[in-house]
């Protein structure tokens, strides 16, 4: 145990002292914030540019009200000019494009014969906006032709909202569902990032010991398994420290941001919505605010916390022992590719499955199966947990993870202890199989 502690300590210090670790810890949050700000800035700039669109309405069905200017798009009526001249003008002038609505006998034909001319291919959102406007006008025309009063249609619009309760009478809302998705997704994504960053870090550390040839000295003092375990734990500790620092930095930044730019942040959000909508949002927000707080406390927080730790460590240990085995099998990092693939695949699959199925249906068969399979369960189960998972499902999943972990560590340790002393030829999968069967 004393030796294991020494190894963990050394691995931790070696990792933390590394320049790239220090740079990554303090620079990457800045980079993230900088990139976010840049994207936001560019988006705003993009929106600020007003697009001028002209329309030629030969059908006479579209009034000025239909093409009312918005913040980003201005419309001009060129009907008097005719489409050919309009097109010329648009091409020469500073216009985004020209919409041509010809005169047709029936609405159906008209709907298919409207054209839009532009220099570059127009943005999807602009086209959808135009189609919406046209649809609305044409639908009104059609309804009127059926003799239906438009006012009735407007009045008949009803939005239902189903209250969701479970059998113990606890209410939940769509909002809290979103929150659950968010928590699960962040946890799953964090785990994947952690495994990728620190799993490969374990691998690199193994390769370093091989190439510097210190490995033979070390294994004459400690068991290879101890060394592998020490490496995995040491790197994980460094990783947790990094995550902790990021967490602190995030809190500090958001505190600074909210105290200095608090008002600005509100503006940013309101830029997209009209004042009436804003008011409505704020009203529902205060109504729902209390509910959210209640809901958060009704989430199985303690259970979530412990399961998060279990799956986080379980997933990391499972994968990093495989990474250690890969590191031991090869002589340098360029040879790792073929062995990395099968490790990365289930990891990425888990995230995809998580985002694709758990969010839609957290208790559907696909979600359930993947939360049992040990290579995907840490991520998928983490995503499912906020939605409440039956204890026996968790038990099966945990048991499978523990069993697989033990088998995989045993296999990885076998490959590791043979691999670290093998130099030269890049091993094949057949070689690895042979190593696993070596005794002692």
């Amino acid at each position: 145990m004393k030796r294991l502690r020494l190894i963990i300590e050394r691995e931790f210090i070696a990792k933390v002292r590394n320049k790239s670790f220090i740079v990554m810890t303090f620079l990457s949050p800045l980079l993230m914030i900088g990139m976010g700000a840049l994207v936001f800035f560019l988006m705003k700039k993009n929106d600020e540019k007003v697009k001028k669109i002209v329309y030629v309405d030969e059908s006479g069905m579209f009034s000025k009200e239909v093409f009312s200017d918005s913040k980003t798009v201005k419309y001009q009526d060129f009907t008097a000019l005719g489409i050919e001249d309009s097109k010329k003008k648009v091409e020469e002038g500073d216009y985004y494009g020209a919409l041509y609505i010809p005169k047709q006998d029936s609405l159906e034909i008209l709907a298919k014969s409207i054209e839009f001319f532009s220099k570059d291919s127009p943005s999807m959102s602009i086209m959808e906006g135009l189609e919406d406007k046209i649809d609305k006008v044409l639908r009104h025309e059609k309804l009127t032709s059926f003799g239906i009063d438009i006012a009735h249609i407007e009045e008949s619009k009803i939005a239902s909202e189903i209250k969701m309760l479970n059998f113990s009478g606890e209410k939940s809302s769509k909002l809290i569902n979103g929150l659950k998705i968010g928590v699960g997704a962040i946890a799953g994504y964090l785990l994947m990032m952690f495994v990728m960053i620190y799993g490969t870090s374990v691998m690199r550390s193994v390769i370093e010991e091989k190439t510097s040839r210190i490995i033979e000295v070390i294994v004459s003092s400690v068991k290879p398994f101890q060394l592998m375990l020490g490496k995995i734990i040491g790197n994980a500790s460094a990783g947790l420290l990094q995550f902790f620092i990021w967490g602190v930095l995030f809190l500090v930044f958001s505190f600074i941001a909210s105290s200095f730019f608090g008002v600005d942040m509100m503006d940013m959000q309101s830029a997209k919505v009209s004042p009436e909508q804003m008011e409505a949002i704020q009203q529902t927000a205060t109504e729902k605010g209390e509910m959210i707080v209640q809901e958060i406390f009704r989430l199985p927080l303690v259970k979530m916390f412990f399961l998060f730790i279990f799956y986080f460590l379980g997933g990391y240990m499972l994968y990093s022992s495989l990474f250690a085995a890969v590191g031991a099998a090869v002589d340098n990092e360029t040879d790792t590719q073929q062995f990395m693939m099968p490790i990365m695949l289930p990891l990425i699959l888990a995230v995809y499955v998580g985002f694709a199925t758990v969010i839609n249906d957290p208790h559907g068969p696909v979600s359930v199966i993947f939360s049992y399979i040990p290579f995907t369960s840490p991520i998928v189960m983490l995503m499912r947990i906020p939605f409440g998972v039956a204890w026996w499902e968790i038990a099966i999943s945990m048991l499978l993870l523990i069993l697989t972990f033990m088998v995989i560590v045993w296999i990885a340790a076998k490959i590791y202890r043979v691999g670290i002393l093998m130099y030269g030829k890049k091993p094949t999968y057949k070689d690895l199989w042979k190593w696993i069967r070596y005794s002692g």
Partner: protein
Amino acid sequence: MSNLLEINNVVKRYGDYTALNNVSMHIPKGSVFGLLGPNGAGKTSLIRIINQITMPDAGEIILDGEKLAPHHIEHIGYLPEERGLYKSMKVGEQALYLAQLKGLSKSEAKKRLKYWFDKFDIGAWWNKKIEELSKGMAQKVQFIVTVLHQPKLLIFDEPFSGFDPINAQLIAKEILQLRDEGATIIFSTHRMESVEEMCDYIALINKSNKILDGKLEDIKKEFRTHTFQVGLATSNSKEVEDKLKQNFEVLPADFKLLNNGLKLNVKLTNGNSANDLLSYLTTQGEVQHFVELVPSANDIFIQAVNKNS
């Protein structure tokens, strides 16, 4: 003299390949034991088994009367042929780490490191990284790390590689001093002149089998050919040579002498003794050179391996 290490019928297989086939040898306490053999003979496999890096498939190893067990690593120091230290770690920290892995306390390790660093006059390197040192300098650090925990058994695999002659001499002196202080040393090398210089005992492994072992002196006696180099200042060389051929086996010689004269290798035959040869020679002229051709470790190595193949 009792044995520090007894290797009894050790077998090691890697899949279908047998690396060690029923190898036994006894290594006496306080000796320098040369473990010799061509490349790929199985030396490294044996050394790794003694270091408990790998386990034998059969056979047992007794260290100082006890069956080899994990706690024995504190009594073994190993300098592998392929040297290595953490490149980006500082010399002092690294030495402390490795010493602690061998079971020394931090304070004790510090004290002993200071002694050795002073002895080798390398105290200034303490805070340097290994990558800043030359190969020879790193080797010195590695040597210190190997012997620091004062192991009963020291295993040196090619200890002189990477050293210039002066530092090689320094290390050889240290190794012999460690022996005099009671350590037992297993010494694996291909440099036969250092075998002559250092080893009390040798064992020769070839193709996974031990083909020879014992006291170097005894082995030399066993391999002696009773051949003498003879240098004689005489006026009638031809006559002397013919006469010698009647009683002895005369072989051509290519050794160098200061004076020109008759130079021959003479092998004793027909129960003749060295004295018979010498007394005849003295009657024929001035004997300038008379030396028994003792087989060198190199000769023994080559002969034994060729015979075995």
